[in-house]
């Protein structure tokens, strides 16, 4: 009998600190599997964000750097420009990427930095205790939107893939989810495509992953997955937002 699914080499044996049913663990595993499959583990620098994944470096068998809130794409830029041989995995949550670090992510994308951004969207601030995030849905109750997000005061959710896809440089942008077998497989495929493109030097890619936060949503993990399928992915449609190589011809004015 052959073992057809085992723990990837990119992860060590520590038990992750995440809550039961948290999406971070699922995505960490996919990243590690993919780096192993593409034989990129030894070249990878993983950038952990500020958020629940701040300690991601406890679990990966790769080099690691921890970035300030929102700054991971800037740190990624520096690393990659210093050593283009490195594979840069910039891992960010929605508070980190879509709030504190909007400037960094927009401009790293606009420059077409040859990095892979894995963006975990769970519509809430996890680490600090379930406060409203830029991605929180209208009407969603959080510890700082106790009556539900009111668009008259707090505006509407920020859609990162759609926003970044308005710039020309990004090579690949896709939104996936973790709520079904089909979507798990699509997520894994998207991560693999992103890393592969980076290894080929093709430019910036971002995979946004709709991910459960059962604790702060106040749901059991299975209920949280159902909520992604029924509610969250209605606000954030899944799909590919960019999959083409940008025009890179240099045109000098006189």
């Amino acid at each position, binding site marked *: 009998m052959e073992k057809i699914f085992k723990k990837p080499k990119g992860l060590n044996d520590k038990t992750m600190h995440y809550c039961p049913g948290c999406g971070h663990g699922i995505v960490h595993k996919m990243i590690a599997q993919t780096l192993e499959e593409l034989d990129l583990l030894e070249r990878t620098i993983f950038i952990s964000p500020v958020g629940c994944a701040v300690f991601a470096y406890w679990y990966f068998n790769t*080099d690691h750097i921890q*970035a300030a809130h929102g700054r991971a794409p800037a740190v990624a830029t520096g690393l990659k420009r210093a050593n283009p041989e*490195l594979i840069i995995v910039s891992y960010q949550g929605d508070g980190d990427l879509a709030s504190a670090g909007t400037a960094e992510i927009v401009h790293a994308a606009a420059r077409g930095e040859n990095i892979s951004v894995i963006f975990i969207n769970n519509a809430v601030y996890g680490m600090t205790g379930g406060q409203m995030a830029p991605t929180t849905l209208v009407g969603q109750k959080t510890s700082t939107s106790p009556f539900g997000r009111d668009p008259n005061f707090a505006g509407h959710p920020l859609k990162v893939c759609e926003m970044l896809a308005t710039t020309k440089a990004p090579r690949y942008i896709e939104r996936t989810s973790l709520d079904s077998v089909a979507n798990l497989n699509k997520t894994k495929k998207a991560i693999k495509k992103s890393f592969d493109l980076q290894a080929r030097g093709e430019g910036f890619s971002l995979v946004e992953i709709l991910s459960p936060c059962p604790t702060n949503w106040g749901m059991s993990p299975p209920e949280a997955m159902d909520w992604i399928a029924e509610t969250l992915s209605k606000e954030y449609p899944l799909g590919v937002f960019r999959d083409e190589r940008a025009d890179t011809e240099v045109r000098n004015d006189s």
Partner: protein
Amino acid sequence: MSEKVLMKGNEAVAESAIRAGCKLYFGYPITPQSEIPEYMSRKLPQIPGGAYIQAETEVSAINMVYGATSAGARAMTTSSSPGISLMMEGISYIACAEVPCVIVNVMRGGPGLGNISPEQADYFQVVKGGGHGNYRLVVLAPSSVQEMADLTYDAFDIADKYRMPVMLVAEGNLGQMMEPVKFKELKTEFTDKSEWALTGTRNHEPKIITSILLDPETMEKHIHKLYEKYALIEENEVRFEEYLTDDAEIIIIAYGLISRVARSVVDKLRDEGIRAGILRPISLWPFPNEAIKSKIEQAEFFFVCEMSMGQMVEDVRLAVNGAKPVHFFGRCGGVVPTPVEMFDNVKKYL
């Protein structure tokens, strides 16, 4: 061609950084230092492995430096006062994570947006902290274009040696003025960084660069380790220059460009038979405390001149510790003190 070239202070910083092996520059334009990114944007793309990146903000610029130097490269960023304020978050992270880097602050008038005229009012910010937490920066203050070049070159070595950020501070007019300058040779040998730099895990166990230490005892231990390093720097890296202080009864203390105004004041005082001299701190941290203390006995008084409301003067007072009077004269808002008014102010205390 001549071995010397005529350069602006800002250009000298840029050229000297390149000679020190800095291949990566990340920055954002701000007057009065924009000649540095302009120079870098012309030169670095021509160097193998070199890159000039115009960051979206100074916040990003310092974090790009954090990434680049973590990969073992020599990298720098430069800005002027308001931009340096934006970098404070990153500087604190870099100090804690023990990564080397060089930052240049070509200071302008503040607070707030202030103006583009020269000032020295960022002393507190860069010498006393600025960012959060327990850390120090090595701060170097040149007074000529030649020193802009020399100290930039040295700053990279100091940063690598101690694995920490080093900041060069210059007044706006020092960045803008032109003087002949001679550069050092292109540096080709560097400190071995393989112990800590992020290069992938081919030949070693996973490495981590971080500034998060959750456990209070671990954090305290780390801060103690940083301060042991700082004690070593206070022992080894103090820099200052003296001018006619051997027999001086009036010790003028001034740094940066204003020390050159002070020099002409000392000459004028000497012409009148008044024994005055200058002690010019070159490293603002580590501060030349011992040098100042050694002048207490001979001094009638100390006279501190700054282009601020008086910031370094507090460190002078700490060093003198009440043993002799410490007088202060400063102009701020971008006004450069003239030799005449400095002279008149010294004479008030005679």
